[in-house]
């Protein structure tokens, strides 16, 4: 009988693998089914958005940054818009802030639904994807209502919003908020106590809080390790300090803890949305009153010379932003989304950089999966909720 072969085996996973959430490539070194080492390769979705942004006018960058993290478009644009507004020194009317909070939370729900559906599907619960996407459809309908675009609404603009809320907005949001908590119960009924799901997730891919911070992981992953760090509580923006909500945490740091944190986050998001929609009046201020940035109303453009000139300037040259730099973080669905903006005092950005939570999560992947089984890689990638558009930009 021949000798048992003991060398390790190298397996290439991705970039066209359905469970790599896009085009992530992993080179796995395996000893049987145990993972010896992992080398992630990224960059397949690099589109040079940050470089492109330097050629655009300030307002034209909003649709660009929305295409980075394509599952949480409005989280990107919110960070960008807040960073530029910080340089301009603008403050928004209360109503604009409330609408931004509402849309950012709906965006979080939409992103978490895709996470829940794909994550559960990858570890066996295929039907979860259909239930999750069915609810997300309602959120995309709301996007279509406000902007005519389902994925990338570009509804947040520097200086406020694109236009006022459409008719039927409150009805659509309230109908969703009335329906959704029952659906979260259904999702949890399918998964939380499901024996197969728990065996695939409990104790898998565990991370300590110390490790999470060392690797720059802030967001749901750190909260599943016991941290209560959330940008909305620690560095409130858009008036989050006036909302009543909790930060769900867990202490185990494994895949199952991340699942519980994110599901609890969805319930908290619904609470925030309910408070926000009650504060928002059907009509009212939808932009600040700074004439440098916000074009004058159309009736004035047609009747007043100054308004016509201002309108023409804003749409041809754009506006200038005072020289300087600003970094504004927002709590995105995947963790801290931040936008670092540098201005040289002209009408085009000098540099735009997005801080991508998926980028950091993939960097930490070898630490999380090393020593585990190859089947757990899929569970860990799903629970880290990586989006390659966010990672590669």
């Amino acid at each position: 009988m021949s000798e048992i072969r003991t060398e390790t085996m190298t397996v290439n996973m991705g970039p066209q693998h359905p469970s790599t959430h896009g085009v992530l490539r992993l080179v796995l070194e395996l000893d049987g089914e145990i993972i010896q080492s992992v080398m992630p390769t990224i960059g397949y979705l690099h589109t040079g958005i940050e470089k492109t942004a330097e050629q655009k006018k300030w307002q034209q960058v909003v649709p660009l940054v929305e295409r980075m993290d394509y599952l949480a478009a409005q989280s990107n644009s919110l960070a960008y818009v807040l960073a530029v507004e910080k340089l301009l020194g603008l403050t928004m009317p209360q109503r604009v802030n409330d609408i931004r909070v509402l849309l950012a939370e709906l965006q979080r729900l939409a992103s978490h639904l895709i996470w829940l559906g794909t994550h559960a599907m990858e570890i066996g619960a295929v039907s979860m994807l259909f239930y999750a996407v069915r609810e997300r459809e309602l959120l995309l309908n709301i996007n279509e209502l406000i902007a005519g675009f389902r994925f990338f609404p570009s509804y947040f603009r520097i200086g406020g919003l694109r236009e006022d809320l459409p008719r039927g907005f409150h009805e659509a949001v309230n109908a969703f908020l009335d329906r959704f908590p029952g659906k979260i119960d259904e999702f949890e009924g399918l998964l939380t106590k499901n024996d197969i799901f728990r065996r695939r997730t409990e104790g898998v891919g565990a991370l300590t809080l110390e490790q999470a911070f060392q690797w720059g992981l802030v967001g749901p992953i750190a909260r599943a390790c016991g941290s209560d760090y959330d940008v909305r509580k620690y560095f409130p923006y858009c008036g989050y300090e006036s909302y009543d909500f909790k930060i769900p945490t867990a202490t185990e740091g494994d895949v199952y803890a991340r699942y519980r944190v994110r599901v609890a986050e969805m319930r908290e998001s619904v609470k925030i949305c309910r408070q926000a929609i009650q504060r928002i009046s059907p009509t009212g201020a939808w932009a600040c009153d700074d004439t440098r940035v916000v074009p004058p109303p159309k009736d004035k453009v047609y009747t007043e010379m100054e308004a016509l000139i201002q309108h023409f300037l804003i749409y041809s040259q754009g506006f200038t932003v005072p020289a300087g730099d600003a970094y504004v973080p927002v709590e995105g669905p995947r963790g801290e989304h931040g936008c670092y903006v540098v201005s040289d005092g002209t009408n085009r950005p000098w540099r735009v950089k997005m801080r991508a939570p998926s980028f950091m999560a993939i960097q930490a992947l070898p630490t999380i999966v090393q020593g585990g089984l190859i089947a757990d890689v899929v569970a860990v990638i799903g629970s880290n909720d990586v989006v390659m558009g966010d990672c590669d930009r």
Partner: protein
Amino acid sequence: MESAAVIEILQSAVPGAAYEVGLSVDMPTIYVPAEHLVATCGVLRDLPTLQFNVLVEVTAADYLPREPRYEVVYHLLSVPNRQRLRVKVRVGANGSLPTVQSIWRGAGWPEREVWDMFGIVFDNHGDLRRLLMPEDWEGHPARKDYPVQIRKAAQTYEPLEVSEAEFRANIERDRLKRTH
């Protein structure tokens, strides 16, 4: 905590380093000389009054034609103290700076990205390879003197009719003059 207060704490912990206050509108900003970067970051992480335990990101900006040309920017976060800090390092055209992976392990990929995009070398990094761009890529795309529109003559399509010089001239003509 103001930038000056951070510098005061740092100066007693790292003797001989010349720190500078940076202008900012959002968070305290300090300039750190490259040779004192690692010692400074160690103090920033470990001193109980500072405790910047998370490196949020590393990025850079190219200020061509200013000299020194680059600024490498580190955004730090102290979860226990609810504090943020921006650390900037000025780097010249062919300059380099040390890696801070010994302080925050997560610095590896962000530094690799900065090298990939700007060509700024991080000494003792250990894994300074292309991250976002293909391995055989020439040049560093985020530099201001890197061609924006055309890298080389397209091989499978008709060449574009707008030259790089024309495209740049259009952008420059359109770029408003500095306001101050």
